[in-house]
């Protein structure tokens, strides 16, 4: 397998809900007018708490400085796992499940904090730039490491710093953060970039004016519904995560949907904001899922983490995670 270290230098930021209007100009530019910026990596995730923005340095310039904008201090690099592709017959564990054992667990073992972003097309594992030598050292045994430099993929040689990296003891990872599962179901989808202009106003409405819509259906929050929407435009590919009701607002045939029309349920991790330093959270969730061979998407935001699992599997997932929780305690 190949691990590509992408060339984007990423910033992770949070915009408070009340401050969103001062950032909308920049965000609209980043989301809908890619030709006007040099930004290649943009992701916006709305949670009930805030908007989480992941953007590369070129795109970051589009955002104003504001008291509402808090930025995680580190610069992040995105890793992307490319499978050799040959195995046409094997069953396909997808998303974080596929890379749980090969990437996420080893990184957790080495106390490297990761930030996950799953999209319709692929999974990005964000690591701090300063952790890169350690990451490369950790993963070099499992992967062919390739680094993207100016658009060319070149072999990345591990800096060879092996001294001082102690092989850690493999310890069981109990789930330590509280989990919750909202009642609404989600759709992970995409659309043809050519059709983006035709649904831009709708998307803007969903992104920025959902507050009003939420108020009208105010009771949904109480009944376990969660406000969650994610839009990303990464290297020309659009990925959308939205709840089922929101998909109904889109015209037919615009959103890419799977033939099976699968829907996903969310597992939300964390009671208190998780911060960026704690490691092993993704591993805690993904390892049991991998063991149970349940596909999952995983989206980290500024404050909390979110895993998406197939609706039909939600009970077994909760079960598996609870078991893990209990064994940990």
């Amino acid at each position, binding site marked *: 397998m190949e691990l590509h270290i992408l060339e984007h230098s990423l910033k992770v930021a949070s915009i408070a809900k009340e401050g969103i209007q001062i950032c909308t100009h920049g965000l609209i530019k980043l989301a809908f007018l890619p030709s006007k910026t040099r930004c290649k990596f943009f992701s916006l995730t709305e949670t009930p708490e805030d908007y989480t923005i992941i953007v590369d340095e070129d795109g970051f310039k589009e955002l104003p400085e504001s008291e509402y904008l808090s930025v995680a201090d580190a610069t992040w690099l995105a890793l992307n796992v490319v*499978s050799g592709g040959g195995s046409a017959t094997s069953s396909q564990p997808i998303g974080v499940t596929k890379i749980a054992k090969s990437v996420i667990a080893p990184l957790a073992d080495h106390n490297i904090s990761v930030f996950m972003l*799953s999209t*319709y097309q692929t999974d990005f594992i964000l690591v701090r730039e300063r952790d890169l030598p350690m990451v490369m050292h950790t993963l070099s045994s499992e992967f062919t490491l390739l680094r993207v430099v100016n658009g060319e993929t070149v072999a990345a040689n591990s800096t060879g710093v092996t001294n001082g990296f102690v092989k850690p003891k493999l310890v069981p990872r109990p789930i330590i953060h509280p989990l919750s599962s909202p009642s609404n179901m989600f759709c992970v989808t995409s659309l*043809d970039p*050519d059709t983006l202009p035709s649904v831009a106003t709708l998307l803007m409405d969903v992104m920025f004016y959902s507050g009003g819509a939420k108020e009208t259906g105010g009771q949904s929050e109480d009944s376990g519904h969660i406000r969650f929407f994610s839009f990303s435009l990464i290297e020309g*590919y659009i990925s959308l995560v939205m709840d089922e009701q929101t998909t109904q607002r889109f015209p037919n045939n615009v959103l*890419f949907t799977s*033939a*099976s029309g699968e829907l996903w349920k969310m597992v939300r991790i964390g009671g208190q904001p998780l911060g960026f330093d704690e490691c092993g959270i993704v591993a805690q969730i993904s390892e049991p899922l991998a063991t149970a061979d349940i596909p999952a998407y995983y989206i980290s935001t500024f404050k909390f983490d979110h895993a998406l699992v197939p609706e039909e599997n939600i009970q077994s997932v909760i079960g598996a995670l609870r078991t893990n929780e209990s064994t940990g305690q």
Partner: protein
Amino acid sequence: MSSGYKPDILWSPHHADRYVICDTELSLYRIGPAGSSETKAGALPLSEETAATLLAINSDTPYMKCVAWYPKQEPECLLAVGQANGRVVLTSLGQSHNSKCKELVGKELVPKHARQCNTLAWNPGDSNWLAAGLDKHRADFSVLIWDISSKFSPEAVPAEKVRLSGDVDSGLVVTKPLYELGQNDACLSLCWLPRDHQKLLLAGMHRNLAIFDLRNTSQKTFVNTKAIQGVTVDPHFQDRVASFFEGQVAIWDLRKFEKPVFTLTEQPKPLTKVAWCPTRMGLLATLTRDSNIIRLYDMQHTPMPFGDEVEPTIIERSVQPCSESIISSFAWHPSAQNRMVVVSPNRVMNDFTVFERISLAWSSTTALMWACGRHLYECTEDAGQGVAAAEKDIATKMRERAQSHYGHDTVQVWRNHVLAGGDDPQLRSLWYTLHYILHCSYTENVEQKQQSNKQSLIYSGIKNIVKSSSGTTETRRCWSGSDRQTDVPWYHSEERSLALQLCGWISRGPDIDVEPFLKSLEQEGEWERAAAVALFNLDIRRAIQILNKGASAEKGDLNLNVVAMALSGYTDEKNSLWREMCSSLRLQLKKPYLCVMFAFLTSEPGAYDAVLYESRVAVRDRVAFACMFLNDAQLPRYIDKLANEMKEAGNLEGILLTGLTKDGVDLMESYVDQTGDVQTASFCMLKGSPGEVLKDPRVQCWIENYRNLLDAWRFWHKRAEFDIHRSKLDSSSKPLAQVFVSCNFCGKSISYSCSAMPHQGRGFSQYGVSGSPTKSKVTSCPGCRKPLPRCALCLMNMGTPVSSCPGTGKADEKADLTRDKKLAQFNNWFTWCHNCRHGGHAGHMLSWFRDHSECPVSACTCKCMQLDTTGNLVPSDSV
């Protein structure tokens, strides 16, 4: 949305007259000759000759991303359309729904996860197989190979789950592909390999070109590259693939897949289409965005298989099919040579044939060949005898002249113009001039050995001779045969007399006696000229006599008698009727010499312009006339003027005036510029006396060019003769010995002791075996007395004669260089292969290689003779 769609064009694989334009809908057109009865009123003109008729429109498939035409004959118009959501729909155009087609039309091939379908390709072998390249999805494969005949349709899909994908007849939906390739990857382009229909070339997102073999999908050959858009296999050379990325096209050889064989020059705008021409080998057409030109790359001359690191030569050119309009797409015609249809964004179509590059080559023997498309044309000179000599190409003339030993007659120099064919007045004049120059200088040499000053004056031309003229005497001569004094002043000096000699009027001596010259002219039948010369020498009677003779001669012109009569009535009375009538009527005379005769008689003394500027009269006669009748002031002015005229015109008659000086080279340059006759130029300049003109780089250039020409014609013997001729006249041109044979033991040159040998250099070194008693023991090195190497064939030491040679002495040898003798000598020469270093007697070697290609030394496999490119050619001239 529709505004973003640019029409693409797709040619039917089997019907050369049908194509489809696809933008938001599919339109089928038939192309036919314009104005024919077949074409209807609604036909769209595509070019002056062709028009297209719209046959059918299909707008059932929105969000089209790519289209592929079913490759089999039947069903005829089946198309696979890849859509933005990844579905592939089979549809047809303008078909009466026959059973087979009906079954397939409307079938949908649906991927598990929706994303854009980038590319489609039918398997060229199994036409049921359709490969679709999709964008990437985290959990799905990007290349799906569908079997369109598959009946499988999972019933398991619950009705509510297809709600997002619209209502479809689930009976026609296929969701299970035959093969899935390329997980977590995007496929931007793909094609089946024509060499092996189980193999698929994919261009993927992770900067990879990969070849998958469906028999073992876990293995792939891949290479990292940016150029991952639009892979296309050269239909004529199935290992050659073009792929592009933005503005760059990379050409790959599948046998050496590690890196592109070469990349084409990058275009500033991104490419939109790259296509190999199906009707011509190695022609690639590319189109960039918003461009009105199509760029063509001709890889005709690419060495195959591709050489090491050598960049192959590619001829790049561009065509502009429709003058201003931007081209949206183009498609090569499947069978008509170099033909394509281009379509503009607003669907204006244009039928266009790329004109084939013409390559043209001159042969060294005047023939011209050119190739255009699949045709080869040859243009040769009419070799028939009927062609007038003047119309022949100069190369033909030079070849003929070379074969008739033109330039080689050093005794009777004037005869060279006869060797040249004798029909060129300029050459005639030139060779007579050279003859007189050499003749004068020879007699000068014999009689006055010391006068080297005068010697060089002879070569410097009349222009310089008359300038140095001094002590001119002016006399008034009588008409010969009468005592009547003429009022014509007549000038004489030593230099003028020399000039007359060079003009050929008089021979050596102080007397002005033109009688021998007149005699020779009479002999040649040049009556008018002879009469004029006689008249200019104030001998009217002789002139009349000559004219009478001319009239009575065989085929004589009786009019000459009339002229003689007119002449006899000459009177020097200024106002006589005779004078008046002659000066006006003379202009009606056709013959220039007759005309100037009356001009002379009717002119005022000293005002002879009518004679001097009569261009039909030979320069030498006009100059001789001027030398007699112009004074010291007029003469140089006239000569200068005439010389400049000649120089500008490149007229060889002017050599008389300029001589073989720098001026003469200038004149010759202008002659060569006009005629290309380097042969005459070379021979003429070689005659230059002190060799100063030979040092002129122009002269050296002519000589070298002439030698090269002879070589190109394979006139090697002529070349050698010319070299010998040249070295006789220009000792500095003698080549130095370039090759020496050194002894294996002491390293000294073995030819050192016999350096007097005449033949040295040029690859052969003769080791003299004359057979004379004193020289017979030369089978050992003269330096160390060790034996010389042995001939590989006769195994005798070199230096041993090949066969018994008649024992002639050295002195005889020079005098009697018969051909047989020379050949026999050549047979004794050393010769060896520069590659394997084996060799022996030249004669033995020649006869060996007549029947063998390998070296005569056993176990040596050197193909010595083939290493010599000219070794297998035969000279085309006779020895």
